[in-house]
């Protein structure tokens, strides 16, 4: 690979840097908008205005109004934190479950590793969203349940990817040296191996935040995540779609918010991957 990739390193690196910048800008903008929505919105997000229902965008209502005349921009801002918390929460939970398993199986290997990986393969054979639906059957409908479901559903992927990195790292001299010093297994896993597998964790984590934001919105869209009258972006898209034949303007705000956030997290992860010279989840550069 080296011989051929060297001449390409220049443009590739530059593209990575641009991805990283755009991704970071979009991500920060989404977080800032959601934080702003907690303290300030142009109108009260649930303020009904029956005289101005389904209004197209105007100076007074930048994204127009929904079927109750509620200001879409205000609702996008106010609902943002719910959508982002789904993304961050599910990813954090997925890592909290996946990381210890990946460190243990990648470090010890052997029979336990074989058995666990069979389980992981079986779990990976079911689409994340369907797995999340299964967990929701067990836990019930709601936003905390959606975070749990998406987090548990994401964990097998984390185990697979991080375990691969742990196996690579475990053969390095510093691990051999730590064993020779007689360090405890847990010390080696968390003090020696973990810092060295952080790059793929950060990359996969940030890409997964994008996926989880999308998955969370999908669950809310299906009526299985955030429950009305509370609204995140998925709920808003669902509500907008019901009146699509009358006006499609209410779709614009939440759709833009969700797409730009997902693009942001994806570009950020991808840019980091290039910057850190990592391979993607299929082991390709």
């Amino acid at each position, binding site marked *: 690979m080296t011989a*051929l990739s060297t001449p390409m390193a220049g443009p590739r690196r530059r593209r990575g840097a641009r991805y990283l910048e755009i991704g970071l800008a979009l991500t920060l903008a989404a977080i800032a908008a959601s934080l702003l929505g907690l303290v300030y919105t142009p109108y009260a997000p649930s303020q009904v205005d029956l005289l101005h229902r389904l209004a197209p965008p105007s100076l007074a209502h930048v994204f127009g109004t929904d079927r109750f005349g509620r200001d879409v921009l205000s609702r996008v801002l106010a609902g943002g934190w719910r959508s982002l918390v789904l993304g961050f929460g599910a990813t954090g939970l997925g890592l909290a479950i996946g990381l210890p398993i990946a460190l243990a199986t990648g470090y010890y290997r052997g029979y336990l590793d074989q058995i666990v990986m069979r389980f992981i393969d079986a779990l990976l054979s*079911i689409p994340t969203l369907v797995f999340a639906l299964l967990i929701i059957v*067990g836990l019930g409908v709601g936003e905390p349940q959606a975070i749990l479901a998406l987090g548990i559903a994401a964990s097998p992927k984390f185990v697979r990817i991080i375990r691969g990195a742990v196996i690579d790292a475990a053969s390095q001299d510093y691990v051999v040296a730590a064993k020779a010093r007689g360090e405890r297994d847990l010390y080696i896993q968390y003090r020696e191996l973990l810092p060295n597998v952080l790059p793929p964790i950060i990359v996969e984590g940030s890409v997964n935040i994008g996926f989880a934001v999308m998955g969370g919105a999908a669950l809310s869209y*299906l009526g299985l995540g955030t429950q009305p009258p509370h609204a995140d972006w998925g709920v808003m898209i669902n509500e907008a779609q019901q009146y699509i034949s009358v006006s499609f303007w209410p779709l614009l705000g939440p759709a833009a918010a969700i*797409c730009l956030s997902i693009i942001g997290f994806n570009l950020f992860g991808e840019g980091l991957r290039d910057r850190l010279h990592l391979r993607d989840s299929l082991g390709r*550069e």
Partner: protein
Amino acid sequence: MGVAYLARRVFYGLISLLILSAIIFVCTHLLPGDAASAILGEAATPEALATLRARLGLDQPVLLQFAHWLGGMVTGDFGVSATLNQPAGAIIAGRFFNSLALALGTIIVAAALAIPLGVVAAVKRGSRLDGAILTASYVGISIPDFIIAPVLIILLAMPPLNLFPSSGFVALGISPGDWLAHTILPVIALTFVLTAHLLRQTRSGMLDVLASDYIRTARLKGLPESLVLWRHGLRNGLTTTITVLALDIGYLMGSIVIVEEIFAYPGLGRLIVYAVANRDIPLVQGTALVIGAVYVAANILADFAHALLNPRLAQQ
């Protein structure tokens, strides 16, 4: 082709399904309250609950219940849907073929678009064209299905174009024309995301192939570049693409859940959403298992194809 290799792949596939069925069983038994209280409601007397539990076998040890349930699944007895009062197996079978039509249509269109574009992007790596293809695929991956679908409805199923019905379904046997009209929009929506995904994977698979030693050898032998690409490159690039396509079946099954719901298309995806929302446990279990089985089967088929195209692999 190594029979032992293929037998091992099938065996692993079956192990995966066994584990998956256990996971499905556990997930659907987590909820507080069991099927008996779900059927009888909150006002049920303890005696009535106990009787129904005994009849449903819910008073038996969990492992025995699991064995009983799994035995039913293996012999095609998926139980009776709790809300539709019909055999779950029959409902799932009908929906399965509807989803299969969507999936096959999508895979064919997506492969026809993504493979050539992915190969071109890999060959022209680093060029403006590559950049444009990559960026477009990026946007495709980042736009959720539940946004693409309403946009398609606005563009194609509403005035002025009004080309297709925005939702619903007509059986192929009743009116092939109406069936097609109802199938096209969901296929376009599914194709959008799958093409973007498949294209990126084809590109990186092809890049690996182009960087390999035998391509260098072919080039150093002085073979024309077109021959190197089409005869040496694509044959091996194709094996990667087949693997990727099989992996993407899982991705596609996830999208199908959303897209079928939006277009009110009666397939497995809409069925599982209905089953989850209504806590119809036999229906959830059967649908989830069938979706998992499709994915496992697709991967076994991909391994078969892989072994046919690359016999060395099967002998390892």
